[in-house]
């Protein structure tokens, strides 16, 4: 049986997640892996917004911030279970994206990029300044998800890093599966159609503003869940999660790997998450490096690393 692109992507992703630990020199790499998966999840949301629908957000870290702080604040103040706090954060992010996107996405052009930039900065400022509840720039403690203890009582004893590696890996797989379902569905086709020609999309009956709004809301939920998982994993969170640089990072990861392809974008998240861990030079000059990467990709491989490489291989094969 021939596998579809969706099945290939999920298979490759599952294999990478399952087999990589056999090559880990130390348990530190579980930690790097789960960071890649968390970033990969946010970037998969960017694929839906930017890769499918062609819309650009420069404030998605704001939604990650909402997701992260929901997991810090809702258990402490509302007595909510951390898992429900994640759901609450996703709901707030989705509603906020809806409210902001609805008026903005009726307009053509780069309004979404500018509006989301403002929204992201606003969320980051609120998190840093409202220290009476958020703990301010120093950050805040996050409750334990508690799932590891449950697994332990069932006889599955994982170390903290192993657990988070598996858990975020699973979340990434689910996120990728949803995004791939969407790609070939009527909604995904409408998004890709309006990306290709907005005017033609309208004449075939696509409600362009509504379709863009759906993409924006879905991608906001992805970012929010990613932020929640980061917070739950670290058991601690600072307003940096909502910072402007984090938004730029998400877009750069997607663009580097290939915003049009789920596997490509996750690949991009992998590279840009690993580099600062491996090369201290990269960590020191991260902002400079991100800018450089973005420029080089735009000049030499507009489609991103993975699609460009695949095209090269296929081109030679013919």
């Amino acid at each position: 049986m021939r596998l579809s692109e969706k099945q290939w992507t999920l298979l490759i992703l599952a294999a990478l997640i399952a087999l990589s630990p056999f090559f880990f020199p130390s348990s530190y790499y579980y930690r790097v892996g789960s960071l890649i998966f968390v970033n990969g999840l946010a970037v998969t949301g960017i694929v839906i917004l930017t890769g499918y629908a062609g819309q650009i957000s420069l404030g998605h870290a704001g939604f990650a911030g909402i997701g992260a702080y929901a997991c810090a604040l809702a258990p402490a103040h509302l007595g909510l279970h951390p898992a429900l706090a994640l759901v609450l954060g996703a709901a707030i992010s989705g509603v906020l994206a809806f409210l902001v996107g609805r008026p903005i996405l009726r307009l053509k052009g780069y309004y979404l990029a500018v509006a989301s930039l403002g929204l992201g900065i606003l969320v980051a400022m609120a998190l840093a300044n409202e220290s009476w509840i958020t703990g301010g720039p120093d950050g805040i403690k996050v409750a334990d998800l508690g799932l590891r203890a449950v697994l332990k009582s069932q006889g599955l004893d994982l170390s903290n890093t192993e657990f988070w590696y598996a858990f975020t890996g699973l979340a990434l797989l689910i996120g990728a599966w949803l995004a791939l379902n969407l790609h070939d569905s009527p909604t995904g086709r409408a998004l890709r159609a309006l990306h290709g020609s907005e005017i033609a999309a309208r004449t075939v009956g696509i409600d362009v503003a509504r379709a863009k709004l759906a993409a924006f809301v879905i991608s906001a939920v992805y970012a929010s869940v990613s932020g929640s998982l980061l917070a739950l994993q670290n058991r601690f969170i600072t307003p940096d999660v909502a910072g402007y640089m984090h938004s730029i990072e998400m877009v750069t990861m997607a663009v580097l790997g290939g915003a049009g392809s789920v596997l490509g974008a996750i690949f991009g998240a992998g590279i840009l998450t690993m580099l600062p861990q491996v090369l201290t030079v990269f960590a020191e000059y991260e902002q400079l490096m991100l800018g450089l990467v973005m420029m080089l990709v735009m000049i030499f491989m507009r489609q991103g690393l993975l699609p460009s490489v695949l095209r090269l291989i296929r081109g030679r094969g013919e």
Partner: protein
Amino acid sequence: MTVLLEIEGLGISFGGLRAVNDVSFRVNPGEIVSVIGPNGAGKTTLFNMISGIYKPGAGRVRLMGEDVTGISPHLLARRGMSRTFQNLQIFQSMTVLENAVAGYHLQESGSVLADLLGLPASRRRAAAAREGARQLLERVDLARAAEMEAGSLSYGALKRLEIARALALNPKVLLLDEPAAGCNAVETEEIDHLIAEVAASGVAILLVEHDMKMVMRISRHIVVLDHGEKIAEGDPATVSRNPKVIEAYLGTQAEDAHAHG
């Protein structure tokens, strides 16, 4: 017979310049009405007003008796209007098949959640649209190119693909903006047959076309525009004898032919 499309006193100005002024005509079911005129006469502007891309400055557009002036293209699509573009509007990075499937949007779209989860309902809708699209591609002789990237097709093939996508909406009124432009004689004849066939099934067709032989051959009624105004209308024989038309249109057409070499 009920009038499908009725244009009444339609007009628009851009920065004080009257692009189209007081144009009226009607199109009945199964009828092919052509709009002709020299370059810059306002034909495409007229199309853009009828199809909701521009909001008319004056006048009314009625679809099956209902006033649809200035409503959005996606709502017009729901009411049975469909169109193609003079300067192709193809979804370049999609396959040929997917371009045609996109034409089935109104039939295939449902809940976003079902699409995300890949529920059977969502897949059924998509499969039905794909099946319809395959048949349409067969009809415009593009079935063999179905899995190719649309951007790699020849100009004539893209023109046919655009018509197929417009037909996917199962329209009551079809607006074709220069469907034969850039096509060779064989392709033009194919498009010609296709248009006649679609009209025969009861669709009202409004056509802008520079190929005068084609226009004279297939139109029931011709509207002539010059400098945004309707200067003549009637059946092909009447229009081609009209001195105003000969002066405004056929005269410049001879120049055009010369200029294009």
